[in-house]
């Protein structure tokens, strides 16, 4: 023990001021005593392996113990650490391992009866690593925020000094650092007088303030670099291949509880490095979990946060769940209907959320009919369903609805939004647009699997009449936009940021952007024989050039390999990659769109913004529905069946005390305002009044409108997509004052009640006013009025035997009710 203490003190001295580890090391020495040993069931040490590559290298480790109830505790300072190795390869101090000699060893952790370990490999333990511009200097500039967008990373720089945003152009930054304003920014004779350092430590006034102290590793690295003659190791330097962030997921109990995180960079030459002191930390919800500059997360309010570390071009994240202390909770004994309920339930248990009860038969019938076919159940269907007492009637109803042709129309509309089916002046005439929408309708009617449809669409060449899917390339002429649209529509990835700089909150770099763009740079177009026709073909030449330096970028899959494209249409190659079952985004992003349609909110939300800093609320669930979609050969019906049969879908919209603030974990159903097209179709259906829509025969449904540009006041006001972009945000579902005014006073509701003449004809047919009220309720709300509602309404109807105006007012009121306007 005394030896250990001595060593610790030496260690303390050696790191004093370095790496900001002093406080952490001090904690290690004094944290043996704990009051009461909680019952742990699992112990994990992160990282599982550690490699030390030079004399100054080190690796910090973290141990996390899990209780039976899922709560995790940072036990790094409670476990007994022992380093076992044949030849004393390394010394461990608290949670940091440092090299002593080359070889292998095992760092073992013991907590009560629980064990885990970290394999340690040490090489070159006597060698000093040279200072690296790429791996030491740039990361310091990022970490200190010098090249952030508001500072020198802004497009024009700041106060005469410009750096590339987050270091996306290290060669240019080298030039500006070392060649501009010679001897001012960098003073090799007197390194400490370099403006780069003097400004950063606040030695002279600096608009950006003081960024770090003299005695930090940041200062030391920059100083060493200057002292050693500003070496430039960009040529041939290893690049960061990936970044690990540990622990991957924690559940903290009680405000103020902490958990330390470790960041490890994996380089292309196979080496690794602890970069916890160089990464930039952030949290997407500071009130739940805040991450400080040392990677220490502190629990705040109850909830869920995603904590992130950015290093180099990589952003990685971990999920942190925070629970209040001593929360009484017993998991629901609800038997899962299928895999969806198991995965949703596991997350709800973690969050200690109790799911709401099950929706009534009437609610379920109305909800599932609107969601699957975009219409309301008829009074006959309502009667049938409520009379049916078999236990599987809900599942049978789902199957029955899935067989209806209207199901295909709903998804035809969704795809038309994504594929930008619309006319465009001088580019897409009405005829090619119409043929394009017919092509899409045909795909859906014939149940062409989605992967095949997308592959066919993306690799299409030919005339816009006989191969109408080429209109996808005709509507948007700009090849960069095409690349962006393809990524967003089919992969749920927004690449736009990376056009001008490395994406600050995702993994995409400018290299990725222009290499992906290269798949679309060989598209060419010429006029067809008909003046309205265009021919889209593969020119076979045309490249994508990186705007920094003008490099020609070879086509490369996003986050993947650089394929052989010689002699092939590059679009074919990318189409195969996108629709391959191995593509990590295609199936999940489509499955997520389907999920969001039925649940009101995606597992990733917005559905077309898959990004590291916008993680799925339930990753296992997203994986599961994505792989199911592949298993089902992209047949949406089967996935819809799984969703609609799950208890998660069939829950009530009524919140309970534990889930009332949660909207992301499917503990209850979310009320959704009916979409523009569906609402208009439903109004027409229940009033039996036909609508004349642009480009369609009288009585056709709004979901069938071919052209994105065609609309009417109702549809525009209720947020129909104009299909000008592939963004899911084009469809607007939020209520507005104009919507309320239009329903109250506008032509649609008032006139349709009159046109449909339902009230007078029901009275003519001998129905009593009370029966008419029942019928109106059944048509619109899939239920009968309650006795209270019935008696209040009858009082208003008066003594008139045929109170047409009064009953039409009841009809009007029901159509204006929230219960009608929302799917719930």
């Amino acid at each position, binding site marked *: 023990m005394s030896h250990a203490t001595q060593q610790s003190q030496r260690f303390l001295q050696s790191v004093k001021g370095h790496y900001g580890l002093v406080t952490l090391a001090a904690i290690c020495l004094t944290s043996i005593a704990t009051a009461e040993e909680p019952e742990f069931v699992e112990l994990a040490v992160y990282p599982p392996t550690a490699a030390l590559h030079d004399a100054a290298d080190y690796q910090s480790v973290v141990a996390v113990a899990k209780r039976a109830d899922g709560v995790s505790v940072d036990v790094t300072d409670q476990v007994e650490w022992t380093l076992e190795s044949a030849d004393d390869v390394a010394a461990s101090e608290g949670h940091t391992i440092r090299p002593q000699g080359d070889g292998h060893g095992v760092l073992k952790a013991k907590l009560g009866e629980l064990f885990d370990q970290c394999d340690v490999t040490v090489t070159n333990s006597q060698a000093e690593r040279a200072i690296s511009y790429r791996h030491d200097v740039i990361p310091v500039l990022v970490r200190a925020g010098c090249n952030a967008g508001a500072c020198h990373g802004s497009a024009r720089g700041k106060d005469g000094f410009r750096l590339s945003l987050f270091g996306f152009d290290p060669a240019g930054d080298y030039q500006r650092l070392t060649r501009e304003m010679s001897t001012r920014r960098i003073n090799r004779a007197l390194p400490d007088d370099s403006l780069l350092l003097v400004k950063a430590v606040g030695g002279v006034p600096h608009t950006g303030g003081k960024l770090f102290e003299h005695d930090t590793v940041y200062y030391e690295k920059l100083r060493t670099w200057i002292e050693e003659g500003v070496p430039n190791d960009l040529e041939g330097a290893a690049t960061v291949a990936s970044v690990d962030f540990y622990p991957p997921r924690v559940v903290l109990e009680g405000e103020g509880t902490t958990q330390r995180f470790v960041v490890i960079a994996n380089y292309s030459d196979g080496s690794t490095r602890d970069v916890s002191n160089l990464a930039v930390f952030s949290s997407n*919800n500071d*009130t739940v979990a805040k991450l400080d500059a040392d990677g220490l997360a502190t629990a705040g309010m109850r909830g869920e946060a995603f904590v992130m570390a950015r290093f180099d071009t990589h952003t990685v994240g971990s999920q942190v769940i925070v629970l209040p202390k001593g929360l009484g909770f017993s998991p629901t004994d609800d038997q899962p209907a299928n895999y969806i309920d198991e995965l949703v339930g596991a997350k709800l248990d973690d969050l200690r959320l109790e799911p709401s009860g099950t929706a009534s038969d009437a609610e379920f019938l109305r909800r599932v009919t609107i969601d699957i076919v975009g219409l309301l159940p008829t009074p006959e269907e309502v009667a049938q369903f409520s009379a049916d007492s078999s236990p599987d009637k809900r599942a049978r109803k789902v199957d029955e609805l899935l067989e209806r042709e209207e199901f295909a129309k709903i998804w035809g509309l969704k795809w038309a939004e994504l594929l930008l089916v619309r006319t465009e002046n001088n580019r897409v005439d009405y005829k090619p647009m119409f043929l394009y929408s017919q092509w899409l309708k045909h795909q859906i009617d014939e149940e062409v699997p989605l992967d095949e449809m997308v592959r066919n669409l993306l690799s299409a060449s030919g005339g816009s009449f006989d191969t109408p899917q080429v209109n996808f390339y005709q509507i948007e002429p700009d090849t960069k936009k095409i690349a962006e649209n393809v990524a967003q529509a089919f992969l749920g990835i927004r690449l736009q940021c990376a056009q001008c700089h490395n994406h600050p909150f995702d993994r995409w770099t400018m290299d990725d952007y222009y290499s992906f763009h290269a798949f679309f740079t060989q598209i060419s177009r010429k006029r067809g024989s008909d003046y309205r026709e265009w021919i889209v073909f593969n020119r076979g030449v045309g490249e994508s050039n990186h705007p920094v330096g003008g490099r020609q970028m070879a086509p490369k899959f996003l986050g993947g390999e650089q394929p052989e494209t010689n002699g092939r249409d590059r679009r074919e190659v990318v189409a195969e990659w996108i629709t391959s079952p191995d593509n990590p985004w295609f199936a999940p992003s489509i499955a997520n769109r389907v999920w969001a349609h039925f649940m009101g909110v995606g597992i990733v939300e917005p559905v077309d913004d898959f990004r590291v800093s916008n993680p799925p609320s339930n990753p296992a669930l997203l994986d599961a529905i994505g792989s199911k979609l592949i298993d089902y050969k992209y047949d949406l019906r089967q996935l819809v069946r799984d969703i609609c049969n799950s208890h998660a879908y069939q829950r009530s919209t009524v919140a309970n005390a534990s889930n*009332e603030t949660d909207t992301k974990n499917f503990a209850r159903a979310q009320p959704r305002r009916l979409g523009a097209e569906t609402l208009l179709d439903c109004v027409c259906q229940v009033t039996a009044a036909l609508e004349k829509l642009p480009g369609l025969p009288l009585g056709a449904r709004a979901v069938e409108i071919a052209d994105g540009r065609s609309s009417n*006041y109702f549809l525009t006001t209720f947020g129909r997509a104009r299909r000008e972009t592939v963004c899911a945000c084009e469809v607007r579902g939020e*209520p507005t004052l104009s919507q309320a005014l239009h329903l109250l006073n506008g032509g649609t509701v*008032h006139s349709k009640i009159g046109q449909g003449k339902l009230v007078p004809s029901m009275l003519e047919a001998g129905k009593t006013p009370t029966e008419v009220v029942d019928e109106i309720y059944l048509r619109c709300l899939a239920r009968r009025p309650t006795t209270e509602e019935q008696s209040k309404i009858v009082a208003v109807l008066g003594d008139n035997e045929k109170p047409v105006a009064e009953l039409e*007012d009841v009809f*009007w009121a029901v159509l204006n009710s929230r219960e009608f306007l929302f799917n719930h």
Partner: protein
Amino acid sequence: MTASTRVSRRNFLAVGSLTSLGLTLGDYLFLRQAQGSETVPEPKAKSVIHIFMPGGMSAQESWDPKPYAPIEYRGEMGSIDTKIRGEKFGDVLRRTAQVADKMTIVRSLTHGEAAHERGVHNMFTGYRPSPALVYPSMGSVVSHELGPRNNLPAYICVPNQPNPSASTGYLSSSYAPFSLGAAPEQNGFKVRDLNLPGGVDEVRYDRRRELLEFVNCEFNNRVQADNIGAMNTFYERAFDLVSSNEAREAFNLEAEDGKARDRYGRNQAGARMLLARRLVEAGARFITLTYGGWDHHQQITANMRRLMPAFDQAYAALLSDLDERGLLESTLVLVSSEFGRTPKINQDGGRDHWPKVFSVALAGGGVQRGAVVGSSGPTASEPEDTPVSPEDLATTIYHQLGIKAEKELMAPGARPIEIVKGGQVRREIVG
């Protein structure tokens, strides 16, 4: 990393500047806390008319000409004297120059966002865009804080919500703007659905409302959700609007006599500003209107000569008209754009995006009469003195409306977010 880097730069500077007053950080935090409990500022402005010039209007051709700069900076246009002694406007602002003594020109607005949608976000919300949270526009915050007055929607966009940043952000969609849905400059302009449909009289309308209450009652008690609440709110607003003649009449441009319409100009700028005046007079709190498109990468001279005269006429008429009616003291009129344009004319005779320094014009609502704040230096390259940030501008406007910008509003997940973070009430603007 040291503690100081965790303080944001702005906070750091704010605290740094206090040390000259002999305050320690602790004092400062205590003071801030004390501020938090202080009562709201006395409102000077009751309404705001925000005239937004989408695209990034050049300051050099309008509020901040550089007559002594070389031609490649100055541009081809001339400048004229204004009612503020020694200060000049671009020569397309002839009438406005004559009412400059009612205005404050800020010539040193500055931010760092050179992309349209990001600059727009800065100017509408007072926040830099964030990937983690969408911030509410000033209009939505005003709607949230002050609510509707005289049965008119609190926040109205003429003719439509101009951009996504003009919306509610993390606040409930109940605070979304009311978009007219029709352009006031068009013949036969009418806001739809304000009047009862034919065949429905007051009696019948009341019966409908009563029945609607009955139908809604059970569902609304049982199901609580933000979007249902928002729809309920909009129905309430709609009833208020429909049942008030005065409120509906505010949207009726036809009620203005021909002289007033001619005075403002019978065009896009004139009709929109005249309607804004009617709405403010009737009680609307926050009107956002847009005029023209100002992204002049090419041919800036021709474009300014084409677009500016109508603005000049309408804007000068608006300020004079408000003043004559005694409304200028209670109505803050802001003219802004997402950013300014490059100091030098480019090869296409235009100017490109330049957020580093540009101008906004304010008038009324307690704003100084006849003042120029800040300077953009000899070439309009960067603020020479008194830089004013979008945070400052928003904080100042909120202050005039009696809203404390430090107040925290609740974002989803119970995250308290300040209305504006780190802005100052700029006494140069409001005295």
